[in-house]
Structures are given as structure tokens and as C-alpha cells.
């Protein structure tokens, strides 16, 4: 049995989405900027995609900017606002456990002379609203907080944070990296005081290389990519029409039975957590309850290196992710795991399981059984 539990890395594309992408590439391949019929036809896909995404998030369709995915959306959100508002202030706020797409972009902005405050997180991976309140200043131009953490699945109080930020400084913009949250939670940016929101298609069973950034109407953001002036000059370059069509279709399918699917994922996640908890000396990181995301389980297994456990599971065709990649000579310890205070010994013994709508109870049982068998074995052979 092949068990794919690395859905936070990427997901299997829905067949229907893949067929649509193929059709757009091979049949409706026009350039949306062309004046002839082929161009108009291609433009229809963009229009339909915008309408669909806007409807699902209850926003205006002109607030959707198509990008190449989560990383680009985060880059435009951060660099684009920093460049547009630097006269008003040069202070930004984020958390210690963001995705590298945000952390590295913040580091770049620091090199450009911006000041960044990094909020700490508690053991469950959540920020403190009090700390956020203290951090917002008159010259704070942007706060960026991720919705669902990709490594441990903790969920941030986005709506509360949004309201708080606007209360402290109505001019401060609020960006949410929702790459892991979109398609698991109903997200209504306009009602959560969110000004910018990043989404990626391949995390919701869509194609790779495409995503979008929600930019609330009236928010000033400078383009990061210049050229032929597509998407009202906000992001030049011929639109990725097949990808965008696939993105919208994937979003529709994910939303079709969202509540039921999420319910099921929570049940499977509970089952996995209960199962692995029976194994001696393992620890579930983050929020194991329903206040965590439905699809992510981070597990520290004392005495077993994550890479070894990952490959041992791989031999049983179970695919997971190492919480933090740790090579013999160059340990790359994850910022997130450090931020939530995972003890030193466990940092390189952490793996992540991430579920999707395709995950079955049988697969979870098989995984629990595999872990029960191999963990004692692997513990026996350790590096001294």
C-alpha cells in the first residue's frame, strides 16, 4: 500500500484539474492579451478563475492577483508594501515561525534598512496578542502572520490579530500567509481585517507554479515584476492560463464538501495521534486538539533520527517529511521547532505527517502499525 502523508509539501492533483490544465495547454492555448478569438477564449479562463476565487472568499474579483505561488505572493506582499509605504514608516512585524518565503524576505528588507520585530510563540506555536499589541507602533507599515504553520499545524488567531492591529494603528497593513490554511478553513479576508493574503495551488490538489495574492481594494502595493503590464501592471508576464484555470477548479473542488472533508481529516488525525501516542517516548508537537489544523501532525521520536525514520517509512511506501533536515555535517534545525521550544535532543528526531482528502483510515492504521514495529528496532541502533 502506498501512503502519501506529505501533503503539506505538495498534494496529488485532482484528475479533473489535470485534465482541465491539459485542455487549456493543448486546445485553448491562446495568450489572453491577444486581440483575436484565441486570446478572448484564454481570457475567459482568467475571468472565470477570478470570479470563482472571489466568490469563495467573499471578496471582489479585482482583488485577486495571480502569481507563481506562495513564495511569490509573500514576496510581493512584503516587498511591494515596504516599497510603497517606506515614507510612512520602516517598521515591520512578523513571527519567529514563518515560512522561509516570509523570513528570508524580511531578512532582505532588514538589509535594505527596514526594522523587523519578530513575535515569539508559545509551546503550542501560537503568538500572544498582548505581545503583538505592544509591538505595533506608529511607524509600523505591515504585520505578516501565517495562518497555519506548515511544520506543526498550529493556527494563529488571525481575525483577533487583524482587529487588534487596526485598533492599534489603522494604517498598518496586515498580511496573512494562508498557504497551509486555505482549503482547510473558510477564510474571509475582508471580515478578518486582512489586507493581503497568500495562497498556493499545489497545496490544494492544484498544479505547481501557480497561486494568488489577495490585495484588498485600495491597498497600495508596488509591483515587484515589471514588463508588459499584464494584470493592471501589478505583475507583468503572460498569465499562466492553464495553471490559473487549474487553481480555480481545485479551489472549487476543495470547497465543494469542505466541512465534511475537514471533519474526516480531524478524525483521521485524532486516530493517528492516539495511535502513535501508544508508542513509548514519542511526543506530538504543537496543538494536538481541534484548535490545530486538521491535516498536520508533528511527531518527535526520542532516540531515532528523523532522516532514518523517514527512509524506514519509505521502505514501507509511507511518505512523510523530516521535521528538520539534518545531515551529518550540516545540521539544519528548523526555526519553527526551535521557536516552540522543542528540546534539543528531539530537534533532529522530528517528522511530520500531513493528510489530505485522499487519506483513508486504512492508510493511517497501516502507518501506526509500521511505526509501532520500526521505532523500537531503530532505537536499538543509534549513533553513540
Amino acid at each position, binding site marked *: 500500500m502506498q501512503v502519501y502523508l506529505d501533503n503539506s509539501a505538495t498534494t496529488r492533483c485532482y484528475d479533473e484539474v489535470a485534465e482541465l490544465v491539459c485542455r487549456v495547454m493543448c486546445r485553448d492555448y491562446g495568450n489572453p492579451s491577444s486581440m483575436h478569438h484565441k486570446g478572448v477564449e484564454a481570457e475567459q479562463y482568467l475571468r472565470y478563475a477570478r470570479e470563482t476565487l472571489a466568490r469563495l472568499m467573499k471578496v471582489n474579483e479585482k482583488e485577486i492577483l495571480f502569481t507563481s505561488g506562495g513564495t511569490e505572493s509573500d514576496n510581493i506582499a512584503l516587498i511591494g508594501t515596504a516599497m510603497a509605504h517606506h515614507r510612512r514608516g520602516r517598521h515591520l512585524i512578523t513571527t519567529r515561525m514563518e515560512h522561509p518565503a516570509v523570513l528570508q524576505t524580511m531578512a532582505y528588507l532588514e538589509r535594505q534598512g527596514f526594522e523587523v520585530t519578530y513575535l515569539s510563540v508559545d509551546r503550542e506555536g501560537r503568538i500572544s496578542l498582548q505581545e503583538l499589541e505592544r509591538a505595533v507602533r506608529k511607524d509600523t507599515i505591515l504585520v505578516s502572520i501565517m495562518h497555519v504553520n506548515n511544520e506543526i499545524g498550529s493556527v494563529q488567531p488571525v481575525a483577533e490579530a487583524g482587529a487588534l492591529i487596526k485598533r492599534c494603528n489603522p494604517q498598518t497593513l496586515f498580511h496573512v500567509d494562508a498557504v497551509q490554511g486555505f482549503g482547510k478553513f473558510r477564510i474571509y479576508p475582508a471580515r478578518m481585517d486582512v489586507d493581503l493574503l497568500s495562497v498556493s495551488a499545489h497545496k490544494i490538489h492544484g498544479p505547481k507554479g501557480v497561486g494568488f495574492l489577495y490585495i484588498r481594494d485600495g491597498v497600495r502595493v508596488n509591483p515587484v515584476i515589471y514588463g508588459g503590464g499584464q494584470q493592471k501592471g501589478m505583475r507583468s508576464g503572460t498569465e499562466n492560463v492553464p495553471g490559473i484555470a487549474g487553481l480555480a477548479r481545485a479551489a472549487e473542488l476543495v470547497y465543494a464538501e469542505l466541512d465534511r472533508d475537514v471533519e474526516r481529516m480531524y478524525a483521521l488525525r485524532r486516530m493517528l495521534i492516539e495511535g502513535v501516542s501508544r508508542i513509548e517516548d514519542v511526543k506530538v508537537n504543537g496543538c494536538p486538539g481541534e484548535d490545530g489544523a486538521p491535516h498536520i501532525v508533528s511527531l518527535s521520536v526520542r532516540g531515532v533520527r528523523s532522516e*532514518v525514520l523517514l*527512509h524506514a517509512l519509505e521502505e514501507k511506501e509511507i511518505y512523510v517529511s523530516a521535521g528538520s533536515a539534518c545531515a551529518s555535517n550540516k545540521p539544519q534545525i528548523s526555526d519553527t521547532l526551535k521557536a516552540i521550544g522543542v528540546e534539543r535532543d528531539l530537534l533532529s528526531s522530528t517528522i511530520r505527517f500531513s493528510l489530505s482528502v485522499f487519506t483513508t483510515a486504512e492508510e493511517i492504521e497501516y502507518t501506526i502499525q509500521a511505526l509501532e514495529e520500526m521505532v523500537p528496532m531503530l532505537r536499538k541502533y543509534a549513533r553513540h
Partner: protein
Amino acid sequence: MFTAFLIKYAEIGVKGKNRYLFENALVQQIKYALKRCEGEFAVRKTDGRIYVDAVSDFDYEETVVHLQKVFGISGICPMVYVEDEGFEKLKETIVGYIGTVYPDRHKSFKVAARRARKNYPLNSMEINMELGGAILDAYPEMCVDVHKPDILLNVEIRDKVYIYSRIIPGPGGMPVGTGGKAMLLLSGGIDSPVAGWMIAKRGVKIDAVYFHAPPYTSERAKQKVVDLAARVAAYTGPIYLHVVNFTDIQLYIYDKCPHDELTIIMRRYMMRIAERIAKDTECLGLITGESIGQVASQTMHSLMATNEVCELPVYRPLIGFDKMEIVDISEKIDTYETSIQPYEDCCTIFVAKHPVTKPNLNIIRRHEHNLDEKIDELVQTALDTKEVIIVR
């Protein structure tokens, strides 16, 4: 402008009656290397020389790069052929050649003519003088230096006139296939590909063995070794890479032997297995990337302990090299970038904090007896289940 290459080879020239064997091998290796290049070529062996003639359009830069990877070649001379249309015409051609090949002409030169066709109206000395004069007339900024010229212009009167002046250095060594075959223990580190390259340079054909230890080493670690073998294969021709699953042997040693001797005992088994495969595949020796004192398992004591289990000679071309010298070669042969990818290899996964550096052979042998019960079976299984990848 160049349409051919004159291939210079150094050591083969001194071989006696076997010379033709070496030349034939070199021709074979050149043909193999040229298969990777755009264009059609004819390789011919005449007058005790090897010529590569382009018989279609070809990519000059690419061809030179590939020829520079053929062991046995000491120099590559890009060449121009012209029909013999009289001496006046030849003067023009020579002046044109200098003009094109040397945009900066503030250089000294010497003409070295050779007359294979003895009925040519001028003799070699006369040709030298006449052509030298023509060049000086055309380019007054140039000067003649018969002792140490910047440019040695060769003009050979044969069926056609051959003109060449540049010598691009080749890798030297001897053509692969003239020196038998050896089994390289390839780990994925910096040293072993360099060791294989050095022995191959002496004309030895290379096969390789890699010890894989899933789940402790990953598929990417194996891919890295395949990539390294491919880099070496660019010089040596196809390499048969034997991938041996070593996990069970390693765990068994871990269970039965003292931990600080794990690496030594493990390496003794690697050598034994490599030798078994080597003998089965008609290899005449083993090659390792060991260098004295580099790590605990490469002290003289440790080397003695690992050497003891082999009957075949073990070639260790890097034995006296410093790490930096090895790195320099690995950069030159383009294996360095691949070698430093951080994937764990099977030698480091269970390494003890303080492995023995001066193993006592008697003690090691005694501890190996702890393995008597199952080790032969495990070794046999490892040999039976090995995977062979042909790396080109």
C-alpha cells in the same frame, strides 16, 4: 576555420612492439569521446600520428573539451588543411592564418616546415625563410625568435598542406583499456572519484562498488554516487557500478562487536565484498581514496587492518596527498560540487565518538569471530542482491 586536430601523445611513443595496441586503444577512446560531440568525425592513424578530421560542421569548443578528457592525449593541435596551389598562394594563406588566429600580433614566432613530399620545389629551410619573410612583411609588429618563439608555426607539406600552431594540453596518461581493469570503492566523498580518475589515467578501465545502507542512507545519497561515477565515466568510458546493500551486515557488526571497532570491521567487510566482486568481474586490483592519517580508519595501523583481508593489490593513489591537493584535482575533474552535497554515507552513520586509531590486529580478528554464526550468509545475500548500474 579549423577543420581537423592533430593528436599528440606522449608516453605511447616510447612503447616498443606494443605501440600499435596503445595507438588503437587511443583511437577507440577518441572515437568514443567524439560520439558526445555535435558533428561527424573521421579518426585516422597515418604516418605514426593520429588525426581527427571533421567531415561535417562541428562545434569546435565542445570538441576540444571532450578531447581533453581522453587519457593518452598530451596535446591537441587544431589544424587547417589547404590544397597545394603553389607557393605564392601558400604565403597568402599563412599570412591569413596568423591574422585570424592571433588578433594580438605583438609576438615572436618561428616557422617550422616539414616536407613529407620531397619533390616540393623548395626545401624546408627555404620554406621557413620565405614564409617568415612574408609574415614579417605583413605584420611588422611581429619578430622572429628561433629559440623560444611565442608562436611555433608548423607547416607540413603532405598530400595537402597542414598548418597548425597551437597546442592545447590534453590530460596525459595512457588510453583507458590498455592497462586492465580495477574495482573502485566509491563512497560519495571527495577522495574516491579522484582516486578512480588517477588510476584510470594510467590506462586502467574502472568499475565501481558502492555500499548502500537504507534506511540510514537515502536514495539521494545513491544518486549522488551515480552522478559522481558519471563524471569519472566522462574520462573512462562506461563504468559498471555495483550497488551493494550493506545495512544488515552493518547492523550485525553493531550488535556483535565493540563499538569503537565498528568502522574498521565494517571496512574490512567492504574490502572483502569489493574483492569478491572484483574477482568475479576480472578486475586486477582494488582502488580506494585513502590517504594516510586523514581519519581514524586511515591511520597506518587501520590501513594495515583493512589491507590484510585482501589478496588483490589495493591501489591507493592519494596515499600521500593532503586534502587540499585532492580538492584541487576534484575541482579540475568537476566532481567536487557533487561530492560536497550533504548526504550521509554508510561510513558515518554509526561512527563512534572515539573510534580506535591504532587497531590491534589480533583483537580485531578475535572480535570478528563473534560474527561467525551469520556473517557468511549475510555477505552472500549482499552479493546476490546487488544492483548493477551501467553509468555512462
